[in-house]
């Protein structure tokens, strides 16, 4: 069998593109998040998070990522931002608060960056441009 070529969007830094492979991997995470659109489900989840998650067949990694609110890890494990933001809403967080957490900034730092025109595309196009950064 031929080796699969690298996806052309794989070298965009700090970005997980939600494609069919990710969608398959993250089916349970996303369907769990989708369930939170119903107020009754939000209440049941809040009452016992670990118990509620059992119905969605998550992997141990996915379960940990959800319980610990590891927003980037949820995306890496197949979650999609439009789904995971519903978990943010359940926690009472705005979209911008969740975005700030994913960038490692405080909400104020993030809001200030946006007011100043956002994150520049310069230096943020390719993974190679991020290799010089610390950490």
């Amino acid at each position, binding site marked *: 069998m031929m080796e699969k070529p690298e996806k052309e969007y794989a070298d965009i830094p700090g970005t997980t593109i939600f494609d069919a492979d990710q969608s398959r991997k993250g089916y349970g995470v996303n369907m769990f998040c989708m369930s939170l659109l119903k107020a009754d489900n939000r209440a049941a989840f809040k009452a016992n998070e670990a118990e509620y998650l059992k119905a969605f067949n998550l992997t141990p990694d996915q379960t940990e990522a959800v319980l610990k609110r590891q927003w980037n890890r949820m995306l890496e494990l197949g979650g999609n931002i*439009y789904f995971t933001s519903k978990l943010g809403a359940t926690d009472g967080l705005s979209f911008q608060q969740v975005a700030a957490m994913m*960038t490692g900034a405080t909400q104020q730092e993030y809001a200030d960056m946006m007011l100043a025109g*956002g994150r520049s595309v310069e230096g943020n196009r390719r993974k190679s441009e991020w290799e010089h950064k610390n950490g």
Partner: protein
Amino acid sequence: MAKIVAGVFTSHVPAIGAALDNGKTAEPYWQRVFGGYEKSKEWIEKVKPDVCIVVFNDHATAFSVDIVPTFALGCAEEFIPADEGWGPRPVPVVKGHPELAAHIAQSVILDEFDLTVVNKMEVDHGLTVPLSLMFGQPAEWPCKIIPLAVNVVLFPPPTGNRCYNLGKAIRKAVESYPEDLRVAIFGTGGMSHQISGPRAGLINSEFDKAFLDALATDPKKAVGIKHVEYMREAGAEGIEMVMWLVARGALDEEVNEVYRFYTVPASNTAVGHLILENKVA
């Protein structure tokens, strides 16, 4: 005969809806955004479309990951504003135009655009925020709405070229509908933004402004933009801009630019807005 009179292009940032619904429009941050739509509201009140076809995307509201239609046309009598996790927006129920929608579905499918027909669909901020920006806060929306949901959540969305050509097929469909109707078509979403992962917050005003220029004067240039370029240059979620090309395809190649507005930011996103009219009255 029905005809397409204009194209309206606008971002559909959810925080704009929240600001409006929570009475924050007078705050300087939000005034900067809403002020940019005052002229548009006056314009649409004069144009008075009978029907607006609104090209938008569902944000994991009506469609989960169980079924992801690439193009889904709303053919129902009405569409209920959805609860997206913060409670439903306090906006009027969206009334459809099932007869025209069915006609469009039949026409474009036989024209080889394989749409999904949807008879039940709750609509989220992607559809209702543009309506709020253009019509304000009326007790009822002043016209019928045909929602056209485009998948831009699961990669890959349809190409810009496919979207543009679908717009052309929609125009053909509208213009073969016997009733005299004035139809406006909305392209929504964008502009540059990334709301996921460590690169969140990305904005590229240069890209956005070039895109607005291209839509106004040289649509083929925008049609040729590849998905990876949108995602790299305008953010992972900036790819929503392909939806603007459906609306652009439904207009003449040469158009009059009626109005343009651009500001950064609304929450995480660059806000772009354009109104184009066909030249022949």
